[in-house]
């Protein structure tokens, strides 16, 4: 048997013979694939939209700050105030090589930043150069704090998006200019456009970040630090680290080992894990629903083709009588299944790409809902296989039609 133009014609002829039935059968596939792709695209878009909130934040981070002790210990009453110190930072670095970053933070809330008649409420944040590895800045202009800034107590600052927009309404590169925060002038060295919603000590959009050594001098806090942020090295489980770090700090500050209130520790890992699991669950559901619908469509195709084969017994019998081999018949029916599935499926891919694009337009292109090319190709191959599987049972039945059946059915 040759595969030429007429082979296609054979297939299209038999599909076009009952247009409405072919259409309705194909629609099952169409809808199934559309659902799958649209859900995948929508799910990815939603994930991207949510991920924006945590973007730039190291996922295996622990943040800790001192509170009041909750238990009396070694002569101390409960309810004692204590403070984390720069020495703790050094000690933690020394004790736990598993931590890649240990960085202290100081803060001053409710400050006002001023530049030539413009003023805006802000938070002062004293940070180390290392802090950029905890919360990645998105620098629109300039640079972040570096070690020299810290060592030389330079009065420089990195300002958040909102500060920049309020103090420099004309726009342009503000680096080199001076802004005044609480009567002290700082030279702007960078603009941080990060709009992530996970921040420590205030939204980074409203922050003026200065070297921690500068803020320490100004606030005169001595050795005390506000918070310490720690990032574990790759593969280190921060949940396991948490109690060890806690005990190390407690020992030094003479706090009861079983005191839960003295040290506030925020482990980001489980939070990210929850979100991650949530999306895994959502993805699982998407695939379950999508594949389920698609499968139902494919079974529909198989079902209808079963009926079609039954209907075409005489025709197939005639073909067999004039020399079609069982394979010829098998091939034709399987091809019909594949063609029907592919035509419906490709329309579904086109339609879902179109709809996802429309969704992006509605969302003002803030997130990408579009499925990628790989997903579309995977869907295409999945379809071909589904089409083939859908055709196999009916084709098997058709193959066993004997030429005499054509005459018997007269």
């Amino acid at each position: 048997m040759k595969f030429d133009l007429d082979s296609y014609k054979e297939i299209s002829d038999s599909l076009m013979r009952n247009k409405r039935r072919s259409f309705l059968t194909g629609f099952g596939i169409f809808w199934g694939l559309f659902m799958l792709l649209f859900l995948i695209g929508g799910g990815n878009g939603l994930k991207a939209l949510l991920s924006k909130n945590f973007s730039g934040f190291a996922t295996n981070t622990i943040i800790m700050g001192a509170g009041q002790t909750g238990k009396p210990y070694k002569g101390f009453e409960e309810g004692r105030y204590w403070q984390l110190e720069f020495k703790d930072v050094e000690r933690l670095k020394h004790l736990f090589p598993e931590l890649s970053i240990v960085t202290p933070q100081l803060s001053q809330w409710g400050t006002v930043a001023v530049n030539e008649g413009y003023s805006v409420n802000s938070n002062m944040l004293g940070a180390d150069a290392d802090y950029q590895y905890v919360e990645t800045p998105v620098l629109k202009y300039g640079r972040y704090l570096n070690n020299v800034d810290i060592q030389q107590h330079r009065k420089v600052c990195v300002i958040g998006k909102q500060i920049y927009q309020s103090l420099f309404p004309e726009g342009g590169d503000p680096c080199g200019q001076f802004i005044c925060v609480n009567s002290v002038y700082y030279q702007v060295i960078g603009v941080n456009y990060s709009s992530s919603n996970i921040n420590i000590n205030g939204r980074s959009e409203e922050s003026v970040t200065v070297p921690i050594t500068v803020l320490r001098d100004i606030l005169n806090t001595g050795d005390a630090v506000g918070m310490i942020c720690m990032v574990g090295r790759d593969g280190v489980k921060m949940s396991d680290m948490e109690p060890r770090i806690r005990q190390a700090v407690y020992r030094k500050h003479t706090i009861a080992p079983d005191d839960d209130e003295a040290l506030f520790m925020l482990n980001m890992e489980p939070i990210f894990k929850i979100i991650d699991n949530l999306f895994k669950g959502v993805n699982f559901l998407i695939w379950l629903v999508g594949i389920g619908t698609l499968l139902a469509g494919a079974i529909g195709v198989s079902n209808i083709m079963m009926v079609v084969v039954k209907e075409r017994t005489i025709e197939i019998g005639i073909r067999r009588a004039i020399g079609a081999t069982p394979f010829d018949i098998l091939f034709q029916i399987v091809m019909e299944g594949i063609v029907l599935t592919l035509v419906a499926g490709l329309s579904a891919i086109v339609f879902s790409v179109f709809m996802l694009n429309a969704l992006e337009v509605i969302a003002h292109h803030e997130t990408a809902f579009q499925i990628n090319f790989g997903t579309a190709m995977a869907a295409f191959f999945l379809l071909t296989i589904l089409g083939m599987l859908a055709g196999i049972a009916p084709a098997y039945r058709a193959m066993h039609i004997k030429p005499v059946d054509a005459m018997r059915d007269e």
Partner: protein
Amino acid sequence: MLIELQGIHKTYDNGQPLHVLKGIDLSIDKGEFVSIMGASGSGKSTLLNILGILDNYDEGEYHIDGKLIKNLSEKEAAHYRNQMIGFVFQSFNLINFKTAIENVELPLFYQGVSRKERHDLAMNYLERFGLADWASHYPNEMSGGQKQRVAIARALITQPRILLADEPTGALDSKTSVEVMELLTRLNREEKVTIIVVTHESGVANCTDKIIHIKDGIIGETTINTEHHASVFGSETIMK
């Protein structure tokens, strides 16, 4: 001998065994025009199915042109049918959603003949049967006689050794029946096509040169009918 059957037995086993053919011995030579006559239930359809390699037989031997046709796989059977046998059916068995020329082309399609070649050949055959103008018409737009001529063209396009006609006039009126039988006669005379007609109409059988009577699964008498006077109803018409 083109066709040789020796001691063919066939039993259908649908719950109760039904012994249909009880030892058929038959030989038909190249270029013969033979009819097989018998009442319904005589086994003539079964015999036709076996002759046409549409069905298997249980005992005996069947040779076409010296080739033993026995226990063939479906693929081999399809191949032999395609190469050696042309079928003409009572109800034409054209494919309704294909035009006349596509119907005629179909056996060549399964032979793997190229598109253009089979199209030209099919057109050639349709012209010979005076159907050139009907080439692109669908079967339901044609008369019974035209349909049967399309079917004959389809049967002959592969140049088979044997043309098997199963009640070829069964669905036709007497006038077109005569035309179809004349066409078959002409094909036999002019192109030496070996034709086997299965019928229960004596008028149809009378058109052939040899009439083989089958009764209760065995061959009865064989009448040589070169004079075409076998029919009690006369030689000129086909009684309906």
